[in-house]
Structure formats: structure tokens, C-alpha cells
């Protein structure tokens, strides 16, 4: 697959603060790319530079084969952005908002109405068109934000913490729409999120800390590299578990053993079949990867 986003040696400072330091990564066409980091890690700075909202100090950015320094207008027409906080006009109706934003891309008249109808069906907001955006619930507003970002059929959809603060049902709806769009239009999704279960679905993950890449890979690669496996062992007592000589913790009705990887887990089970009668093996989670890589945890937007 070709890289649709290619960032090389990107740097940006605000006075003494080095927001982004020599950042380089690739995003392949059609993939779900997760860009993780705590608040202030440099995610928004990178996105703002990619969208032409902020100038860079140095480095090179190519988006869909176009250099950001030479073809910013063309690049802007290929990007759809869902901001962390809605940037629509609260006082205006959904229809008026989408009409004014569509016109920014030259989509007016019959073309506007046709696309509006498509998106209203896709995101289920036909009943909201006349309502002021300021009167919508968080989930409804998010759907309109996504419709605004998709109006001009962008090749790349940038989602900056799109589901923060939303209820699980709305999050599920949003992700199913995005998954459908990726499939039908081969759209690339550039995601920043504080929900690690969302990052676990990504094709490629980059974790940044203090403006630098700390780790990158597929979720599986990251889990294998930065976390071990867990064996949850049921129907035994602590003395027996202690004899295994493995690090463990007591959880409700069971013990959780920490092993370096699946191979080690298999060896341990084969060696002690009389103990491992009721058990399950699970891989480490993306939260564990994030903690191992940055020494910090992310909990729905808050750094710990």
C-alpha cells in the first residue's frame, strides 16, 4: 500500500517549548491510523500543521503526493477534520451550518442537497436539519460534525478525539459509520483518542511523548513488544500459585499470572497440567502498552 501521509523530520517549537521534535512517520492509504499521546504530547500541533493551520519550523510533509508547502489548497480539499470540540455555529440550524460549510468547497445548489440527503441517511440526522446546533445533544452534534467533515468526500478523515464524552451507543454508531466509509470509499482515518480500545482496532499505532515518537507498530506488535500475556487461573489456592514461581496478583475468584509471552505461557501450562485445569490466556491491552511506553496512563482524556 502507498503512503498517503508522509511526514519527515517535522519540528515545531513555541518559544522554549519543543512541541514536536524531529517527527517522522507514514500513514498508508485506507488504513486506520491511531496517533496516541497524553495532552500536550504534540498530537494537536502535528494535526494543525498538517491542516495548514500552523506553520512548521522544519521538516517535510507530503499528503497524497502533494507537498504541504506548495499545494496547501489542494491538500485542504482532501482533508476532512472532526475537531475535539465542535466548531459549528451554535445559533444556526444544522441545515444552515452544513450549507455554509459545503459552500467552502464549492458544493452548492442541487449538489449540496444531494450530498446532504446521502449524509443525513448515513448518519441519521434527517429529523435534526431545522434544529439549531446549540440545542443538540453531544451525540447528535458529533454526528453533524462528522457530516461536515465528510461533505466534500475527503480522502483523509482526521478525527481528533471524536468520541470523548459520548455514550457507548453513540460511540458504536460513529465507529460503524466510519468503518463503512473506510470499506466503501477506501478512506484513510487519522485518529487521536484517549480510548485505548479504539486504538486497539487501528492498523498502525504511533505513540508520541514530549513531541517525539516513543513507539510505533500494529497493536499486536506493540502488545508483544511492550506487554506480556496474562493467564487467569481459576479453582486453585494461593499456595499452589506461589509454587509456580511466577509473578501474580489475586483477583476476584482467580489469580492472574504475568508471563512474558504466549510461548512462556504454553510452557508453564504444559509443565503444570495438574494446576492449569481452568484458565484463560489473554494478551496485554493497549493501556498496558501505553503505560509501558510512556510511563503514563490515559483515562478518557485525563493523564495519570
Amino acid at each position: 500500500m502507498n503512503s498517503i501521509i508522509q511526514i519527515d523530520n517535522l519540528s515545531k517549537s513555541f518559544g522554549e517549548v519543543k512541541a514536536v521534535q524531529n517527527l517522522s512517520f507514514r500513514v498508508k492509504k485506507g488504513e486506520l491510523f491511531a496517533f496516541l499521546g497524553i495532552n500536550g504530547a504534540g498530537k494537536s500541533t502535528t494535526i494543525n500543521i498538517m491542516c495548514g493551520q500552523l506553520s512548521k519550523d522544519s521538516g517535510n510533509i507530503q499528503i497524497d503526493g502533494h507537498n504541504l508547502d506548495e499545494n496547501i489548497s489542494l491538500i485542504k480539499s482532501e482533508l476532512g477534520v472532526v475537531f475535539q470540540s465542535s466548531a459549528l455555529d451554535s445559533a444556526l440550524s444544522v441545515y444552515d451550518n452544513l450549507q455554509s460549510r459545503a459552500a467552502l468547497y464549492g458544493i452548492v445548489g442541487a449538489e449540496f442537497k444531494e450530498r446532504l440527503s446521502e449524509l443525513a441517511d448515513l448518519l441519521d440526522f434527517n429529523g435534526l436539519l431545522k434544529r439549531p446546533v446549540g440545542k443538540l445533544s453531544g451525540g447528535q452534534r458529533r454526528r453533524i460534525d462528522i457530516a461536515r467533515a465528510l461533505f466534500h468526500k475527503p480522502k483523509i478523515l482526521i478525527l481528533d478525539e471524536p468520541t470523548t464524552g459520548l455514550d457507548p451507543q453513540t460511540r458504536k454508531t460513529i465507529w460503524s459509520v466510519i468503518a463503512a466509509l473506510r470499506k466503501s470509499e477506501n478512506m484513510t482515518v487519522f485518529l487521536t483518542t484517549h480510548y485505548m480500545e479504539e486504538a486497539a482496532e487501528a492498523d498502525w499505532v504511533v505513540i508520541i511523548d514530549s513531541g517525539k515518537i516513543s513507539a510505533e507498530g500494529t497493536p499486536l506488535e506493540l502488545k508483544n513488544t511492550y506487554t506480556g500475556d496474562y493467564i487467569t487461573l481459576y479453582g486453585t489456592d494461593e499456595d499452589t500459585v506461589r509454587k509456580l514461581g511466577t509473578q501474580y496478583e489475586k483477583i476476584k475468584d482467580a489469580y492472574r499470572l504475568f508471563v512474558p509471552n504466549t510461548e512462556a505461557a504454553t510452557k508453564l501450562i504444559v509443565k503444570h497440567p495438574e494446576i492449569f485445569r481452568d484458565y484463560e490466556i489473554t494478551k496485554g491491552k493497549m493501556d498496558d502498552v501505553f503505560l509501558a511506553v510512556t510511563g503514563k496512563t490515559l483515562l478518557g482524556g485525563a493523564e495519570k
Partner: protein
Amino acid sequence: MNTLPYLIKRNVKLYFKDKGMFFSSLITPAILLVLYITFLGKTYKETFTSNLPDAFTIDESLINGLVASQLISSILAVSCVTVAFCSNFLMVQDKANGTVKDLRISPVKPSLLSIGYYISTLASTLLICLAATVICLIYVAAVGWYMTVTDVLLLLFDVFLLALFGTALSSLINFFLSTQGQISAVGTIISAGYGFLCGAYMPISSFSSGLQKVLSFFPGTYGTSLIRNHSMQGVLNEINNSGVPAEIIEKIKDSLDCNLYFFKNQVDIPVMYTILGVTVAALLVIYILLNLKKT
């Protein structure tokens, strides 16, 4: 160019939907109206009649017409600028609440966005000021009408020109603002201060000579004078016809700022138009250049 009409429509709709922005733009004209109704009107009337030589008696309706013309000229001169400033606050509000990000991630050039703000502000300002002009003319008709059709047409042109000036000035100042606090500060200064600066609250002729010289550098004063001239010309002619000598009429015109002086040289009406026109053009050129630089 498909984009511009929709940007203008958005901006105008937002201005009229934002009650805070809409009503704050009407505060200054409302203050003026209250001032005139409560005491200024009476004071001007008394001052005017007491300054007339005893030999002359002027019909009550002429005096009422003169005071009414002074009132409407003050209201219109101030409104064209304060309404423009308040309407143009949308430009700053978009920056303050982050909406501008949503506009700027599109391929539309910042210069087109700025033209959108300018035209929509001008449209909102003209809409309100022309409505105000109609109301003012109805008031004058009720009190004492002496204006000719030419006076009315010139008055409408003055309002248009002053709205252009107010919009250009506010565009340039608002370009440098980006927070809600700055909007409030500028709004307060303009609402409170512009009326004095342009001679709407008190005639410039009543200020000290030093201050008069300073204010003569401010183009807005010539806008006020144009409006004063075209709203008062008819009633002053009628006063002249009623037997008041031309020299006294000239003194009245001096005291009401119909005649303005730049370092003792009287500024003619064509020169006033030129000053205002050149100022609008200069402000617009600077505003456009600043926005082009942004791209």
C-alpha cells in the same frame, strides 16, 4: 465565487440571531435618543432661541424642525459606525470560539473569508441604518419637514458612505483582536467614545480650539458634518427665508458643525466627500493587504 454569497448569508444570519451583538449595536443610538428626549433637545432649543437677536422671531415648527434634524443627524452619524463595529464582532467571535479553524481548514483563502466579513457587516449595517433613516425621516416629518428630495437622496448617500467607513474601520481594528475580552473593551470604547469623537453627542464647535484641531484629523467628523448639512439644509434655508440674515445662519451652521474647519480653513462639502472616500479606500487597501499577507 460560489462560496462568497453563502459566507455572507452565514455572517448576516449570525449577527441577527445573536441578540447580544444586535442589541449592543443599538445602545449608542438609544442613548442619544434618551439624551435628546430628556434634556438635550430642550437645551438646544433654548440655546438656539436665546442666541437669536431680539429682532427676529422664528416659527416654533422651524425650531422644532432644526432640533429634530440635529437629533437624527447625530443618531445616524453614530449608528453607521457603532452598528458596523458590533456587526463586525463576528469576525473576532469566530476567532475566540474556534469557529474560524473550521473555516480555515477548507481550501478557501483567508482573503475571501475577510471579504465575506466585510460585505456581511456592510449589509447588516446598511439594513439597520437605512431602517433607522426611514424612522428618523418619519419623525422629522411629524415635527417639521423642510427637506428636499435632493437632501433626502444625499442623506441616504451619506449614510451609505459612513457605513462604508464604519465597516472599513471596524474591519481593520477587529483584524488584530482575538478574544472576547478585547471585543468587550473595544465595544465599550466605541459605544462611549465615538459619539464624542464625531461630534454627535456635543457639537465639535463647543469643544476647546485645541481639541477641535485634533478632531479635525478624524475623518468620521466629516461624515457627521455631511449628514448634518443634508438634514439641516432645508430648515436653515427656511429660517433664512423667514428673515434671519445669512451671517446669522452661517453662525448657526458653525455652532452645529455644518461648517467644519481644518486649521481655520473651512472644509467644503466636496472635500468632505473626498476625505471620507479616500479614508474608506485607504482602510480597505490596508485591510486587504493584511489578509493577503496571512495567506
